[in-house]
């Protein structure tokens, strides 16, 4: 029996279908990734699973509780780290965590213990008595994470957990997420549009686009499905037609001003390919990444750059408004 099971979960905003008949099973104890470009429906799915938004149709069972009929019990089983900052910036970091402990009915000694533990984890112990207003964007993000991890829920949802963090902090967080899974047997559902994050963390992942699952499997399986390595070529007057008949060339895509080939046993066949094409400006062979998987299944790259309305932007505007707030 899966710990999370969605049944034709659907969310429509007027004519826009954000999540389209999603059927998904997530097993207890795994780290499951929802991967996709912004606007793919990841966050909406998370908000429905955490009972914050009602589905238009369909439902989901979480820890044996129906999100529609037993939302209170669902909320007792879960924790979530939101994409946007949700702590009170007039309170200190410590006070925000204490508030969280109260809201989740944690016994006093356990609460204080955990606060100490998570503050150390996200390296905020020395700043715990500063108001959140004075925190940088990255520090706020870390505080949000600390808070979500504090009550050790049965299922933890992380919405873009490392968005806007520096590489070192990302590494810390990844290590801790792995540790939580191993030591506490917490099931973790993570949304991200960082392919490397999904690759490194997730036991299984689903690539979703336009509210639908495109493909689901372990990162290894997904990459293997492409059937070869990626050969990236740059050449003038490149005639791709001659390559089409080669049995070991599985796929030909154009990426930017270059050509990407998926080639079986590329290390053996590269010379033949180069002989056929003639003069090339540059060539690169690499093993496939989840980016290539995404490109393969959607026909386009995951949108690059910071997404609109990103966490960092919102943190800034909330900070500015917050100044005038009270």
């Amino acid at each position, binding site marked *: 029996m899966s710990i999370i099971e969605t049944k034709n979960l659907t969310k429509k905003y007027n004519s826009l279908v954000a999540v389209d008949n999603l059927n998904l099973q997530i097993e207890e104890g795994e780290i499951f990734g929802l991967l996709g470009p912004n606007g793919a429906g990841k966050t909406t799915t998370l908000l429905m699973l955490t009972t914050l938004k009602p589905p238009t149709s369909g439902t989901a069972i979480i820890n044996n509780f129906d999100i529609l009929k037993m939302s209170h019990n669902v909320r007792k089983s879960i924790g979530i780290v939101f994409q946007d900052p949700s702590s009170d910036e007039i309170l200190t970091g410590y*006070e925000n965590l204490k508030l969280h402990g109260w809201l989740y009915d944690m016994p006093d000694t356990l609460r204080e213990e955990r606060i100490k533990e998570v503050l150390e984890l996200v390296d905020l112990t020395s700043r715990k008595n500063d108001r959140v207003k004075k925190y940088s964007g990255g520090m706020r993000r870390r505080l949000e994470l600390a808070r979500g991890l504090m009550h050790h829920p049965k299922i933890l949802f992380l919405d873009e957990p490392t968005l806007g963090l520096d590489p070192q902090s990302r590494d810390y967080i990844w290590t801790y997420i792995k540790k939580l899974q191993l030591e506490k047997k917490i099931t973790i559902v993570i949304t991200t549009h960082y392919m490397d994050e999904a690759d490194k963390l997730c036991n299984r992942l689903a690539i979703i686009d336009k509210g639908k699952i495109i493909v689901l499997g372990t990162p290894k399986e997904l990459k293997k499905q492409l059937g070869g390595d990626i050969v990236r070529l740059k050449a003038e007057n490149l005639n791709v037609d001659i390559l089409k008949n080669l049995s070991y060339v599985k796929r030909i895509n154009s990426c930017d001003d270059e050509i990407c080939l998926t080639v079986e046993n590329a290390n053996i066949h590269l010379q033949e390919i180069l002989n056929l094409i003639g003069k090339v400006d540059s060539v690169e062979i690499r093993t496939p990444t989840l980016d290539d998987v995404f490109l393969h299944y959607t026909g386009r790259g995951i949108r690059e750059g910071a997404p609109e309305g990103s966490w960092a932007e919102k943190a800034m505007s909330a900070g500015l408004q917050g100044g005038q707030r009270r």
Partner: protein
Amino acid sequence: MSELKGIYALWYREFKVFLRERSRVISSIINPLLWLLIIGGGLGSAVNFGNINYQTFIYPGILIQTALFSSIFFGVYIIWDKKIDFMKEVLVAPMRRTSLFIGKILGGSTDTLLQIIILLIIGLVFINIGLLPGLNLNIFSIFLTLAFLLVTTVGLISIGLIIGSQMESPEGFQLIISFLIFPMFFLSGALFPISNLPPWLAPFIFVNPVTYSVDGIRGILLGFSQFNTAFDFGIVSLFSLIMIFIGTYAFKKMKI
């Protein structure tokens, strides 16, 4: 007991924030003092009701004014909570919406009552320097006044929270409440007696719940009232109960 802890958490947060925002506390005290000293003093030089000095006459009205503005305006913070997503953190916690509503009410009433207490202390100081003749402030009357204002405040905060829970922009909220606050204040008899009203005005005044609060507190503090104090208290309690009822419903329907 998780619901009680949650309610306490929300109260604690509102209270801390209130104490830390000094400008809010100070402006909430300065504003009523300006009314009392300038309107009360200026108009008082020309107007007297029987043997009651005008400044003394509007003192209860100014207490209510403070409660009215601060309570209804409190609803705007729920819009900010939604904007900074603090609301999501609370709504995803295993706590009932009713508890969220109660926590907010308690937080808001604490803020308002603290402001009222400061104004009552200022009232005591004024009496000692010879201002506000005829104002009867003692432990008993202060206690009754606070009880009256607490009940009124709960109803008024509910109004603010009901509007705030259904809105998304603080600007829109401010627009709506200014259409609500000013008529409620001016039509309450806070600034004039309600014994000899022109017939076209009287109905507006008597449907306004704030009228009964002003009348009740004026009865307690000045011994001057239109209605029996118990009647006033009954009306105000009824008003607050209805607002709590609607507020609980509004919070259950609140979307994020």
